[in-house]
């Protein structure tokens, strides 16, 4: 019992330290924080929206994942003052599945969501680089969503890589520009298949299942 509390105090201190230096807190861990959407009192799909897609960090490919795992830390801000004040951050409003698909808790429809930052990690031997890309408050990027409609809203599948899909894979050297680039897999249907078990038994299950059906044709 004594050893556990000592260990917790250490982790607490590290988190405090990292919170002090960056708004997007870096969690020192090998796996991204995933979090789980609470199924209790889940807002229903008639007036609410779920935003989902993939923002992955292929440099962190886990041996067991089907696809590269999720970026450790992303944040979406709702920009429309006429809609709800909403800030979605990894594990707090925005949840990652083990294979890198991100989905939000249901939020009021009508909002506009901008990705403010994303984190990728490069491990080179004994040194690990944590790099946060900031997109700022200005301009609509291809992964931002304007006026989300009730139901499911897909922001695309993106990965932090140094090369476009299809280009010959280059050895990752530190001068290569790593940025969010479109990836074809997982596609919308595959993302939704990851989401379905998270919403089992809720009013969102039939909506997700119906969309998977639609995309399977």
């Amino acid at each position: 019992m004594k050893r556990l509390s000592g260990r917790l105090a250490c982790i607490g201190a590290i988190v405090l330290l990292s919170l002090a230096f960056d708004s997007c807190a870096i969690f020192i861990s090998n796996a991204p924080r995933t979090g789980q959407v609470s199924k209790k009192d889940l807002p229903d799909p008639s007036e609410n929206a779920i935003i989902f897609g993939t923002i992955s960090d292929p440099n962190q490919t886990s041996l067991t994942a089907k696809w590269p795992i999720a970026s450790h830390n992303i944040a979406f801000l709702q920009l429309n003052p006429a809609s709800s004040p909403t800030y979605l951050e990894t594990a707090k409003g925005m949840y990652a599945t083990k294979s890198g698909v991100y989905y939000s808790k249901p939020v009021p429809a009508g909002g506009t969501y901008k990705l403010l930052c994303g984190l990728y990690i490069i491990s080179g031997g004994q040194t690990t680089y944590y790099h946060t890309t900031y997109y700022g408050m200005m301009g609509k990027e291809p992964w931002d969503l304007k006026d989300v409609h009730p139901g499911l809203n897909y922001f695309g599948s993106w990965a932090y890589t140094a090369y476009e899909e299809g280009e010959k894979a280059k050895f990752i050297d530190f001068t290569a520009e790593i940025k969010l680039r479109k990836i074809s897999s997982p596609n919308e249907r595959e993302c939704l298949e990851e989401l379905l078990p998270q919403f089992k038994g809720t009013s969102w299950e039939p909506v997700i299942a119906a969309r998977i059906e639609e995309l399977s044709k």
Partner: protein
Amino acid sequence: MKNLKRSILLLSLAALTCVPAAFGQQKIVKPRANEVAVVGRFSVVPMPNLDFYWQAYDDATPRKKEKRGEEDAPGWLTFSTVVNKKGSTRESSVRMGSLGDQSVALIPIPDDRTILLMRYEVYFFNLRSFCLPLPLFCKIVIPEGAHFVYIGSVDYYTKGEFLDINNANRRDEFDTAREYVRKNYGEDAQLVRVNLLDPDRDKEKESK
């Protein structure tokens, strides 16, 4: 082992308390002999709804230690100067007041007395993720003997939720600025106007 854990905890708490102090009100510091004070004002029209963004950020997690400071739209001027005879340039960033306020940036005067003003970056609530980069890309030439130069009031007109800039305008508020300089830097501080020049050609740029 116990002492080590205690000292880690104390160190991190100390770091937390230091951070807010680092981003407070910009102090008035007189320019040194080799420095120039660049005076100007940057505004965004319409001003973004900061109360709304803060509410979203604050509601997301219990951030008991983070409070909204007095200045919640501090800005940094990014500029470039030639640093050697070969013409190599270096980009730097210096704190320059806040969005909407009369602001001052202290910059070392380079040998060729030319400074390329690149951007004015606003970080709402002092958070890197809430960044608003306002483009400038204008050259200024510091007159001999000048230590306070006035670049004007630049207004950026934005449209829509994504704050896309569709127009920019430069106003002259020289009298207000001169009052501000005299009040904060002493009666004998001389403010002079400088033109914002097109960096590619030696031609005056009225607006972007």
